[in-house]
């Protein structure tokens, strides 16, 4: 589709005047993408937060690229590979880990690059649809700077949304291009590519599953050019749906159903629908979606945490939200049915269609999150951009009516005025909106810069969230660990932690996080029996992600004073064996298995587990320290010195007192057991 053809049926405010056309579309798009990248550059300073630890830092599967084929079998779920039902994302994470390691800065830069890529691909698809250059540029700028995207871009593990959007837009473009292919072979090639990209997009996140419907809407309503024939639309739709079907089949293969979160046989207590039923969840969901719309237009109330709750269908807020959404949907359907205002119909129906995967019709662990809006916001940005350009056009005509030359022919009264002044008036509302959104985007992104900052903000915004209280308490515990034990400040921090644990437990009595909160508090207080009891309760109510609980139980069981020595060992071995069986890629479990063997006098087993833990997470400080201590306990000064020298950067992250203590021990062992290569107990060292 040529640029001229695209402009042929675009609205006056979507076109550039002759003077303004001096700017190449590529320069405009490149400049805007550069602006988005520059604005988001501060995110590179952020740390890992939320699920980043689970999916990237402590995910041993990323260090085993040779086992990627496992993702195509139910064994991936049996081995608890994080996000196994999102194979595209896991493969992407494996590749990025190989290139970027665990540098949070580089991973954040990658997220920014992905977001910029999505903006570029959105502009490209709009060009293929025939949208004018000004509308494309406006939509791209607005999408790139929309404040509600802060969460998706600022949290590394939420790049699943960015990846799904990028691959999904590529799939849409491929399907659109197939209609223009000069030969049948190329046509089929483009359709096959569209199907593959659609499958990959849904393999990154199922939020892309309704993109085929958006594609059909775009080509049926076709606001800027003649619609595709019915057969062409059917072909493109079928190709895109084939990709979605493949992704759904993969999830069904792994989990035995379309939902990866629960099956009919094993309901998931983390899903609110399991506890209160689907009706109240859907009633609340109507309010949530109206709030999404408000947050996209007026970005206040953005939060890293929202509390899941049900609502009544008779609640005035639900009635109002349902009526508003129904009204919008009816307006969209009416525009589509009467073939009037096709852009309005595309924007409204497109947003509804893209909202479906996260609309709680299929239960998901979080009912509401800012990141769910990422893909859905694309048609909304298109609609808002068009409206703001129209408003700017109206403003320009109202502000300087005398500038219109009298000799201008009457049949062209709405031709955009030439020159920079005309353009400035036309762009003023759009620029003001984008600058406002961009400012809130950057400010909101700051909430995600560290875990402590995140949970402090979450607690402020969602004080009735059990998760926010429990995880805030854990950040406080981290502070307590760096405070001298026995000092008043240490006791006071632990009291605050206990308060948050209690509130969390009261807010949600059947949630594992409050129990883990109590358990870690008990560990800090050296109350091993209480810690064991709390971790056991956490394990009883937790449906998944239990590697850390099992590792903790295996370690604590050795210290419980009420049990005799044999019972302690038996219980510890039992927890660890279960952990290693269920979570073979969890480095903390291998490290704890090594530590328990180390403490119970089995150095060979300890060495084996430490090496496994090291392979699964070479960046893990605890494993390195325990490996070094094993060498010291065995009197192998050579092995200890090797670790000290080669891992000096890693060990530099340890507290100063611990480093000093280790160095003193190394020197003591070197003095007591002067090592010789042949006299070394560990011929291959611990890790080197």
């Amino acid at each position: 589709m040529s640029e001229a053809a695209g402009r042929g049926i675009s609205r006056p405010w979507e076109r550039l005047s002759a003077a303004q056309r001096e700017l190449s579309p590529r320069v405009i798009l490149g400049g805007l993408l550069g602006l988005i990248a520059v604005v988001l550059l501060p995110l590179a300073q952020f740390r890992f937060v939320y699920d980043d630890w689970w999916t990237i830092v402590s995910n041993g599967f990323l260090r085993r690229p040779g086992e990627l084929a496992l993702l195509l079998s139910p064994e991936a779920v049996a081995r608890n590979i994080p996000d196994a039902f999102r194979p595209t994302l896991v493969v992407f994470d494996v590749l990025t880990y190989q290139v970027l390691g665990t540098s949070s800065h580089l991973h954040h830069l990658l997220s920014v690059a992905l977001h910029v890529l999505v903006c570029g691909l959105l502009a490209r698809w709009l060009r293929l649809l025939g949208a004018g250059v000004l509308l494309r540029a406006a939509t791209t700028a607005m999408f790139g700077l929309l404040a509600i995207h802060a969460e998706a871009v600022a949290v590394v593990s939420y790049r699943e949304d960015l990846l799904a959007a990028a691959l999904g837009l590529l799939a849409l473009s491929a399907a659109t291009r197939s209609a223009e292919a000069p030969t049948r072979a190329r046509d089929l090639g483009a359709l096959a590519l569209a199907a593959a990209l659609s499958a990959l997009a849904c393999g990154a996140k199922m939020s892309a599953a309704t993109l085929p419907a958006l594609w059909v809407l775009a080509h049926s309503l076709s606001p800027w050019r003649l619609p595709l024939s019915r057969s062409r639309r059917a072909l493109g739709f079928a190709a895109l749906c084939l990709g979605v079907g493949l992704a759904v089949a993969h999830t069904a293969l792994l989990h035995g159903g379309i939902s990866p979160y629960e099956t009919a046989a094993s309901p998931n207590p983390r899903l609110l629908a399991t506890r209160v039923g689907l009706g109240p969840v859907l009633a609340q969901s109507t309010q949530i979606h109206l709030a999404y719309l408000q947050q996209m237009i007026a970005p206040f109330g953005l939060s890293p945490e929202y509390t899941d709750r049900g609502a009544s269908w008779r609640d005035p807020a639900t009635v109002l939200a349902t009526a508003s959404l129904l009204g919008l949907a009816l307006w969209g359907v009416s525009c589509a049915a009467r073939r009037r205002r096709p852009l309005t119909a595309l924007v409204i129906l497109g947003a509804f269609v893209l909202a479906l995967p996260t609309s709680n019709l299929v239960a998901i662990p979080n009912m509401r999150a800012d990141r769910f809006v990422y893909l859905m916001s694309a048609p909304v940005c298109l609609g808002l951009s068009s409206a703001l350009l129209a408003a700017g056009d109206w403003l320009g005509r109202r502000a300087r009516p005398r500038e219109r030359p009298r000799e201008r022919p009457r049949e062209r009264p709405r031709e955009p005025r030439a020159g920079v002044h005309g353009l400035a008036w036309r762009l003023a509302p759009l620029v003001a909106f984008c600058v406002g959104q961009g400012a809130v985007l950057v400010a909101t992104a700051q909430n995600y810069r560290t875990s402590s900052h995140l949970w402090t903000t979450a607690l402020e915004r969602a004080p009735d969230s059990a998760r926010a209280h429990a995880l805030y308490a854990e950040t406080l515990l981290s502070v307590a660990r760096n405070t001298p034990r026995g000092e008043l400040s240490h006791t006071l921090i632990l009291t605050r932690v206990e308060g948050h644990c209690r509130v969390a437990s009261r807010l949600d009595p059947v949630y594992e996080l409050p129990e883990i909160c109590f358990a870690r508090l008990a560990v800090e207080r050296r109350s091993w029996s209480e810690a064991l009891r709390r971790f056991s309760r956490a394990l009883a109510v937790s449906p998944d992600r239990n590697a850390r609980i099992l590792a903790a139980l295996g370690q604590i069981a050795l210290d419980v004073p009420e049990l005799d020595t044999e019972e302690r060992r038996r219980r510890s071995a039992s927890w660890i064996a279960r952990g290693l069986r269920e979570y073979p890629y969890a480095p903390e479990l291998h490290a704890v298995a090594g530590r328990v063997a180390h403490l119970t006098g089995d150095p060979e087993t300890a060495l084996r587990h430490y090496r496994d833990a090291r392979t699964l997470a070479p960046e893990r400080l605890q494993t390195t320290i325990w490996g070094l201590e094993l060498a010291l306990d065995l009197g192998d000064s050579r092995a200890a010195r090797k670790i000290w020298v080669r891992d000096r950067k890693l060990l530099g992250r340890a507290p100063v007192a611990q480093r000093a203590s280790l160095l003193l021990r190394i020197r003591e062992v070197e003095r007591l057991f002067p090592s010789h290569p042949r006299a070394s107990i560990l011929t291959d060292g611990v890790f080197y």
Partner: protein
Amino acid sequence: MNRKFFTLLLLAALSIAAGSMACVSTINELNNDDEGDGAT
């Protein structure tokens, strides 16, 4: 025209930076450099 366009982008970037500083909430960050990686 190119120069005017890039000036507009520069002004937009500066406005966003200034606006974000006005919007950002100041929350006292906890000092929790905990690199223990401990399972417990």
